[in-house]
């Protein structure tokens, strides 16, 4: 009993630290990147106010983080395994309601983002329902957000069933809906109008899914599993394989996307544009954060994992918290990248 209490309180403090690191890292990065990449004022053209200019990317990044957490919570049953419900059920009982709450947050954020996107297009006026309807009607970005919100709501519904019926509601269904809701979001970002359009879109979707599985998986393991050494010893090796795959996928698809998109944009010359354009600088920043993640990931994988497998205590929470904070920075840069200018 004492041990349980200790465990909960310890993971509570660490949890706040981890979530705080992720959210503040992401918000900090996206606000800094937005300030740095702000387009210079054009005489005679009205621009949206600071509330929209900074509020929209901040909301976008919060939406991404909510979606990432939902993906992580959906992957959790697969990572925990189903053969020892006595041990995994307490964890899942905390995870399922959290997933429903976060899915609602995701859906609401997506709807608010639509309102902000409308306001961004109509500077100087407060969006009316008619303007929002026109925006969703005419702009693909609005439809993508709406689709994402619908998926999040559907997830909330399925999640409620899972709260009631437990793992009888298939984990795969929740995973698929969570990823499905994630997919339309990058569609609203950069891509190139050429024969390379479809390969780039596929690569972009893989990038988003890989990043969400990696960040979300690590997040839920640190928050919900790290307090139980036995469970951690069983779960982390499974996640480690997923993370290695995600690392390769994310870095490769990210590089391909960034470089090909730049190479195919008229008037953009590589490699000079990497340092000379906002888009290029953000691609470099994201590559740097992935490079920064590698030592953390490698330390956990090669130094800590053997000790965790031996059921010994480690500082894995601290290392993972640092890794998650860097992931937050990368997410912030990613949101800024979707709107960054090429020239």
């Amino acid at each position, binding site marked *: 009993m004492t041990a349980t209490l200790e465990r909960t309180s310890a993971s509570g403090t660490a949890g706040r630290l981890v979530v705080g690191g992720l959210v503040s890292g992401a918000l900090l990065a996206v606000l800094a990147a937005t300030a740095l990449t702000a387009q210079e004022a*054009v*005489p*005679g*053209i*009205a*621009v949206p106010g600071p509330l929209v200019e900074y509020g929209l990317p901040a909301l976008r990044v919060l939406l991404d983080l909510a979606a990432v957490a939902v993906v992580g919570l959906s992957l959790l049953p*697969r990572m925990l395994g189903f053969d020892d419900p006595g041990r995994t059920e307490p964890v899942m009982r905390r995870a399922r309601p959290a997933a429903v709450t976060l899915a609602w947050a995701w859906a609401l954020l997506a709807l608010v983002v639509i309102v902000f*996107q409308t306001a*961004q*297009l109509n*500077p*100087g*006026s407060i969006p009316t329902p008619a303007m929002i*309807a026109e925006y*969703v*009607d*005419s*702009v*693909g*970005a*609005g*439809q*993508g957000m*709406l*689709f994402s919100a*619908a*998926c999040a709501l*559907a997830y909330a*519904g*399925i999640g409620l*069933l899972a709260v*009631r*019926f437990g793992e*009888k*509601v298939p984990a795969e*269904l929740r*995973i*698929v809906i969570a*990823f*499905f809701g994630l*997919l*339309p979001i990058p*569609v*609203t970002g*950069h*891509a*190139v*109008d050429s024969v390379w359009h*479809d390969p780039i*879109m*596929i690569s972009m979707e893989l990038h988003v*899914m890989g990043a969400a599985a990696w960040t979300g998986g690590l997040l839920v393991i640190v928050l919900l599993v790290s307090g139980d050494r036995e469970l951690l010893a069983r779960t982390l090796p499974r996640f480690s394989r997923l993370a290695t795959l995600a690392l390769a996928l994310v870095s490769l698809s990210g590089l391909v996307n960034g470089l090909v*998109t730049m190479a195919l*944009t*008229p008037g*953009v010359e590589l490699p000079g544009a990497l340092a000379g354009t906002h888009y290029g600088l953000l691609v470099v920043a994201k590559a740097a954060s992935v490079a920064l993640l590698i030592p953390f990931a490698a330390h956990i994988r090669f130094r800590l994992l053997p000790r965790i497998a031996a059921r010994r205590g480690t500082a894995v929470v601290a290392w993972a918290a640092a890794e998650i904070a860097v992931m937050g920075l990368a997410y912030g840069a990613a949101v800024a990248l*979707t709107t960054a*200018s*090429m*020239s």
Partner: protein
Amino acid sequence: MRRPLTVLLLACAALLGVAAPAQAHNVLIASDPKDGARLATGPQKITLTFDQPVRQGFAQISVTGPDGTRWEEGKTTVDGRKVGVAVRPLGPAGRYVAGYRILSSDGHPVAGKVTFTLTAPGPGTASSQGAPRDPASPPDAPATPGLSAQAAEAAQNGGAGMAVLWIAGALVLLGGATVVALRRTGDGGAPR
């Protein structure tokens, strides 16, 4: 892990249909007059050419003269990749800035400017609205696109009707899956 992976790949394949409208930020590739041009007589029209078609509506061009005076006339028109606005006869010699803000084909607004210099004074005088504008005042209403252009664009990206259809389809799919999952629960014995 194989089964969810297969489902995921299928989901991806299904989504590519939806992903089609995604395109890039428009990039300004040419302008008339050119950026940095030195002109003896003022242009009658500013035309900006982008690398991809510009969306109808939302496009806006302004021409600002040496003292913050305004010289564009009428509404901004969009014709495929070209965006233009008529210009009144220019007045004093000096630097003029044609600022623009358009809705990129990927849904993000793109803003920028083209600068040119008038070397000899023209006959025009600044309009009544030419005083430096209060930055907080709302922009000129964007040009209303022709009906056919609107229809063409709606057809191009499917319109909200398609989005509603997709959402409805997804909900039906999810509902069906939920029913199946619940039936399996029933077969597998009482949940409690």
